[in-house]
């Protein structure tokens, strides 16, 4: 341990710690912009400058290592002056359309400018005018708001190994973009949105579809259906001041119901349905010697990643549609038929933690089964726009017939959840007497998890990875024959959907603190699972109803038509 003083407060931190980490331990907050815990640590924005004994001039706390006996001052006139100047320089090259910015009040530059009393006009000078990149259905890049912190680049490269974007040019002209300045949609971007949640300002935002939803709700000819993904209940509360990890399912349903004349369904139902189809497919692949390992297919970011990078392995991905697209398909077939509704008049809105799902709804093979995918953030904005006092709402239940789902469906929102839910059902399918429900080896936020289970005389080797950089490691290991798994769950976002690109963007002071965002959010889902009576997807009465009334059995011809899909090889770029 290294002993040092931060503003006179003694702390001991492990060797190799940075001043920023030590300050955290001393409960002293140092402002940062380019630093994002676990994502980016470059020492480039110069916001976190401090004075330290033994160092010449000001040093960047996020990268400067502590040493024994060091005395650090974080709040001297020199530090404050430098931070203010840095902010004023940033503001001089920032498009200050704050009032209409989606990050208004959650912008780190805005917050710090206020704190440091920065004058936005002092160094006014020439500014670039870059057109917005609105080419993709999932994100908007406004480089005139970009502060070049490169957190998006780091997220794309370090977390996701996608490297769709990078710094281009140099000096004042340096900017972030895809190679050859191509628009996002013509790049290998998978749409995961990790760049959006990494962005401290409004340079990256989701492409908002709320207008389309408002319009549909105002259209007397449309019947509007909402369904919410498993993880949204665990994160939406953050937008309304609830502590991280609060399950607000009841209030969320109540809030959506108050948006207008809508039905609110539970997407956990099609998570359960996915499990039935996927488990069946797995059993079939194992017993009939079809291509293994089988990768899960619920995550559209992961699917696009494979289409760009490993087209030769598309046959290893489960053909099951994602729960979102299964729900769309179920609504526009079964539900419409049963209730005698013209599918064209049904307007289907999914609420998802994800921006890649905005891309997924537009894939031609899905025939607009889902009309609009809204992120958790967009739903929160709609609730606010509608003047709904979220915190005062009663707890309400989803609408029938898609109300009841199992714990297996709920944990879909966290890494390892799909695997565990599938194992619960697959084990049952292989061995009707199999009783095990908790598969704890695949839980937790570790980037890569492995386990072996023996069921009905068969050893099933599984792996779970979240974050595409980890996924790539697994794919490479499989490709090279180093690993021979049977079943692999992949979620593109680190930690799974609870940390998706469409989730609320929390302030840096929380994200860079010791708060374990992924852990708390996923705990909300596992707690829900634990207290549910129905834990395994195949026990769900809703699922039984669907098979009895429509799909007959998992893997049936009808199920195949409706609930399965295929993939398209894409250029690597």
């Amino acid at each position, binding site marked *: 341990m290294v002993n040092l003083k931060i503003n006179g407060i003694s702390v001991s931190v492990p060797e190799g710690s940075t001043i920023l980490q030590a300050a955290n331990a001393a409960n002293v907050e140092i402002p940062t912009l380019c630093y994002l815990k676990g994502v980016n640590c470059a020492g480039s924005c110069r916001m976190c400058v401090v004075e330290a004994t033994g160092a010449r001039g000001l040093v960047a706390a996020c990268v400067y290592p502590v040493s024994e006996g060091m005395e650090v001052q974080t709040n001297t006139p020199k530090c404050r002056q430098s931070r203010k100047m840095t902010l004023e320089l940033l503001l001089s090259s920032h498009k200050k359309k704050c009032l209409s910015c989606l990050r208004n009040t959650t912008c780190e530059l805005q917050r710090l400018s206020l704190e440091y009393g920065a004058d936005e006009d002092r160094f006014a000078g020439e500014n670039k005018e870059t057109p917005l990149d609105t080419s993709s259905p999932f994100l908007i890049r406004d480089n005139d708001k970009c502060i070049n912190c490169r957190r998006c680049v780091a997220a794309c490269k370090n977390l996701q190994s996608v*490297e769709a974007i990078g710094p281009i040019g140099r000096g004042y002209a340096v900017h972030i973009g895809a190679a050859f300045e191509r628009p996002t949609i013509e790049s290998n971007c998978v749409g995961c949105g990790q760049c959006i949640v990494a962005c401290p300002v409004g340079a990256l935002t989701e492409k908002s579809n709320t207008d389309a939803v408002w319009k549909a709700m105002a259209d007397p000819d449309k019947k509007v259906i909402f369904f919410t993904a498993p993880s949204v209940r665990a994160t939406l509360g953050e937008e309304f001041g609830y502590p991280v990890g609060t399950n607000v399912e009841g209030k969320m349903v109540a809030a959506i119901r108050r948006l207008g004349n809508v039905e609110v369904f539970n997407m956990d139902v099609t998570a359960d349905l996915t499990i039935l189809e996927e488990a069946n497919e797995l059993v079939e692949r194992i017993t009939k010697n079809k291509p293994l390992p089988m990768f899960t297919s619920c995550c559209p970011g992961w699917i696009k990643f494979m289409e760009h990078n490993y087209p030769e392995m598309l046959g290893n991905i489960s053909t099951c549609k994602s729960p979102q697209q299964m729900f769309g398909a179920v609504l526009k077939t079964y539900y419409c038929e049963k209730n005698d509704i013209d599918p064209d008049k049904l307007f289907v809105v999914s609420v998802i933690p994800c921006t890649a799902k905005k891309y997924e709804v537009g894939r031609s093979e899905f025939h607009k089964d889902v009309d609009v995918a809204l992120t958790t953030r967009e739903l929160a904005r709609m609730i606010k726009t509608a003047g709904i006092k979220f915190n005062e709402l009663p707890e309400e239940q989803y609408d029938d017939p898609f109300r009841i789902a199992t714990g297996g469906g709920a944990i879909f929102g966290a890494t390892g959840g799909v695997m565990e839910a599938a194992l619960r059902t697959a084990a049952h399918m292989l061995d009707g007497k199999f009783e095990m429900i908790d598969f704890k080896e695949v839980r937790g936020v570790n980037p890569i998890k492995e386990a072996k289970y023996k069921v009905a005389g068969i050893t099933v080797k599984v792996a779970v990875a979240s974050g595409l950089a980890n996924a790539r490691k697994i794919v490479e290991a499989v490709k090279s024959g180093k690993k021979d798994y049977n079943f692999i769950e992949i979620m593109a976002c680190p930690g799974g959907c609870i940390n998706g690109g469409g989730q609320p963007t929390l302030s840096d002071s929380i994200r860079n603190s010791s708060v374990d965002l992924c852990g708390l959010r996923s705990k909300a889902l596992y707690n829900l699972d634990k207290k549910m009576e129905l834990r395994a997807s195949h026990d769900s009465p809703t699922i039984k109803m669907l098979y009895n009334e429509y799909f007959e059995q998992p893997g049936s011809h009808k199920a195949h038509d409706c609930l399965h899909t295929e993939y398209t090889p894409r250029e690597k770029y």
Partner: protein
Amino acid sequence: MKGQNLGFQGTPEQAEKLKKVIEEHKSTPGCLMPVLQEAQAIYGYLPIEVQTMISDGLGISLSEVYGVATFYTQFSLTPKGKHRISLCLGTACYVKGADKILAALEKKLGVKCGECTVDGLFSLDSCRCVGACGLAPVMMIDDDVYGKLNVDMLDDILQPYREGKK
């Protein structure tokens, strides 16, 4: 959407050469720069087609390759003229009036610094010190150095290139 650069006319021989360069360097750590340099020597510039070949060949993402190519002034994304004029704007040349030479060249050629004439004969660039400060102000046309320049000399210097004698 590849083939953005409609003017790209790489030959199979060039591609073969580049492939060889990539193979030779592949296992050397930090080989991207040398490969880009040799690729530019083969093609004269680094269009998307060339950078894509390099990205695929070295297993380095295209965004990284492009980021490197746009960082260094030596790399060009557009074709250069048949004759490359490079005017030194180092300090020694500047204090001896290189800026006036540049303005005159821009006017004579009808292009801005960094551009290529419409007929493709000349491209005009500035550079930072060719280390011939004793001859300031200095410019290079291809590999030839012209020193102690003044505005009136320019036409005589350019003429042989215009007439195809150089």
